[in-house]
């Protein structure tokens, strides 16, 4: 496997790098929001049960 893309390096690595950042960011954000909403709902449910 030759990772030297020669004169096309900027375009090839740029494409893969951009894809990694975009999809990685989307994944992180989706998981973060999910965790936050679960935490907030559980806190509200516990507060309701305590009352």
């Amino acid at each position, binding site marked *: 496997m030759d990772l030297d893309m020669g004169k096309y390096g900027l*375009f090839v690595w740029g494409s893969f790098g951009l*894809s990694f950042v*975009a999809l990685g960011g989307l994944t992180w954000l989706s998981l973060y929001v*999910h965790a936050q*909403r679960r935490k907030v709902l559980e806190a509200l*449910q516990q507060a*309701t049960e305590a009352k």
Partner: protein
Amino acid sequence: MINFLANPERFTRVTQPLRPWLAGFAGVFLVWGLYLCFASPEDYQQGDTVRIMYIHVPAAILSLAIYAAIGIASFFGLIFRHALADAAAKALAPIGAVFTGLALATGSLWGKPMWGTWWQWDGRMTSELVLFLLYVSYIALHASIEDEIRAAKSTAILAMVGLVNLPIIHYSVVWWSGLHQQNAIITVPDILWPLGIMFAGYACLAAWLFLIRLDSEILGRKYRALRARLTLN
């Protein structure tokens, strides 16, 4: 089946076990696909830039597939008042927007060395840009309307009207001549394997993120319903 899954609790119970599998498959396919992307031979004409095809084409296919799913979900939400349809469409939109943006960006990065230009206002590229703007408009419209039911109706209409763009994107290379190449069926194994595996990886990732985001929407609705009940009491 569709009505069976309309109940949020039931939907969560059925889909929760699928999530780790989808994440696992996405990871395996993406690692395997990336290996194949760089182990495959370069193209005799395009050189190493052919490797961009292995991330550009799957992103482009998913950009259309996800919008079609949003359109179908919007139809079910608007006409059949399916309880989770709007939440499903809302969960899909950012995923589709990211894939569309990637299709445009990687296409541009592929086009510059191959065609000598970053962009051309041809049928395919212009209609794909319109798709990206539809996604952004959908997300912005949903965010701008506070009332959930009104937001769902307005965005459903926007999504269904935008469906007309999908056949335009697909047939644009047939109807108009431009830089973008014609649709083709690839049979060469050296190209087909990395393309197929990367598509599988992207599809599993999109499905996993969709289930995560839909569950987030369901959690948000439960929170708002509980808050409303507490406020009334």
